[in-house]
C-alpha cells in the first residue's frame, strides 16, 4: 500500500491504496465519489471518463500510481465549470438521458471536446464521442445536445 496526494476537483486528497488500483476505484471507494462509473474496466465503454491534466481520461485503466500531480476533474465538478454547466443544461433541455448510467462519461467527453473545439462538426462529434458506449442508444440526442451546447458557447 502507498499513500498518494491527489488533486480532485481543486481539493487535495490523501489516499492510501495499492499502486495498481485504478483511479476509478480510488474515486468511487476511497473518496466516495460515485458519479464516475464502472462499465467495463478495460477502457472500452467510457463510463469512467474524467479529466486528468485537462485531458479526457478513462479512469478505469489508469493506476493511481501513474496519476502523479496532474489535477483530476470529475462529473461532480461540472456544474461549476463554465463549459460543463452549459453541457449539462443542454443534456437536460434535450432530454438526453435514459437509464443515465453512461451519461457522466458522455458529458465528460463532450466537455473535453467543446473545450478544445467550440464548433465541432458531425464528424468531430462522432470521433470524439466514438468510444463512449450508451446501451440505451441515446446517441441521436447526444449529438443534438452537443450542438445546442456549442451554440450556447458561441
Amino acid at each position, binding site marked *: 500500500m502507498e499513500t498518494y496526494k491527489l488533486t480532485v476537483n481543486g481539493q487535495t486528497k490523501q489516499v492510501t491504496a495499492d499502486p495498481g488500483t485504478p483511479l476509478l476505484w480510488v474515486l468511487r471507494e476511497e473518496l466516495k465519489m460515485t458519479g464516475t462509473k464502472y462499465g467495463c474496466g478495460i477502457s472500452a465503454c467510457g463510463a469512467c471518463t474524467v479529466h486528468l491534466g485537462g485531458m479526457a481520461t478513462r479512469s478505469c485503466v*489508469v493506476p493511481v500510481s501513474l496519476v502523479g500531480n496532474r489535477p483530476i476533474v470529475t462529473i461532480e465538478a461540472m456544474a461549476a465549470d463554465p463549459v460543463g454547466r452549459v453541457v449539462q443544461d443542454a443534456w437536460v433541455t434535450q432530454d438526453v438521458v435514459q437509464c443515465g448510467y453512461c451519461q457522466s462519461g458522455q458529458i465528460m467527453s463532450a466537455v473535453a471536446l467543446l473545450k478544445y473545439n467550440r464548433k465541432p462538426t458531425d464528424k468531430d462529434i462522432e470521433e470524439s464521442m466514438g468510444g463512449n458506449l450508451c446501451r440505451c442508444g441515446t446517441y441521436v440526442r447526444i449529438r443534438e445536445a452537443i450542438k445546442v451546447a456549442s451554440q450556447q458557447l458561441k
Partner: protein
Amino acid sequence: MNKLHSFSRTLLIILLASAVCSLLALAGPLRRDAAQKPKSPAPTKEEGLAAWQQVYSVLTHPRCINCHTATNYPQQGDDRHRHFANVVRGPANNGVAALRCATCHQDANADSTGVPGAHGWHLAPLSMRWQDTNDKIFSSPEVCNALTDRSKNNHLDGPGILKHHTSEALVLWAFHPGRNIDGTMRTLPPLTHQQFVEATRKWVDAGTPCPQNP
C-alpha cells in the same frame, strides 16, 4: 503453431546472438570514439543489407508495426486487429479532442489494467506506414526506402535514425511492452533493444543500403 513460432524465434535469436557476438567484437574498438569518424573500415554494403534485414524484422513486429498503419486507426495484439472502441488517428496522429491516445495510454505501462504506455504515445505519421490499408506488411525494400526517404521520415539522416532507434520512448517501449489484461506478457520483437541498435548502427554505418525490389 505457437510452438513452431517460438521454435523459429528461438532459432532466430540463437543465430542473431552469434551474429551480434561477432558484431560486438567488431564494435568494441569503434565505440571508444563513437562520436568521431570511425577509423576502421565501414561495414560493406552486404553487411549493411544483412543488418537491415534484422532491423526490418523488428520494425514489422506487431509491437512496432501496429502503430505504423496506413489506416485511420491503430492495431492491437499479435493478430494486429483493429484497435477497439473506435480509436482514430486524428490530425496529429495522437487521437481527437476527447479521445486521445493518452485518454488511456499513460507514460508507463499500466500492468494492473493491461494498458501499455510510454511518454507521448501516438501513431506514426502516414508517411511512415509500413503496411497497406488491407494490413499487408510492406516488403523489406519498401520499408527501407520509406525509412530512408527524408521527405517522409521527419528529415532524419542515418545518425538521426540511429538516435531514434536508440532513445525514442516508443521504440524503447517495444522492448518492454508490459502485461496484457489477462496477465500474460506481451510478446517481444525478435531482437533485444541492444541488438536492434547495433544492427541499426551497422546498417547506418554501411550507408543505409536498401535491398532491391525483387
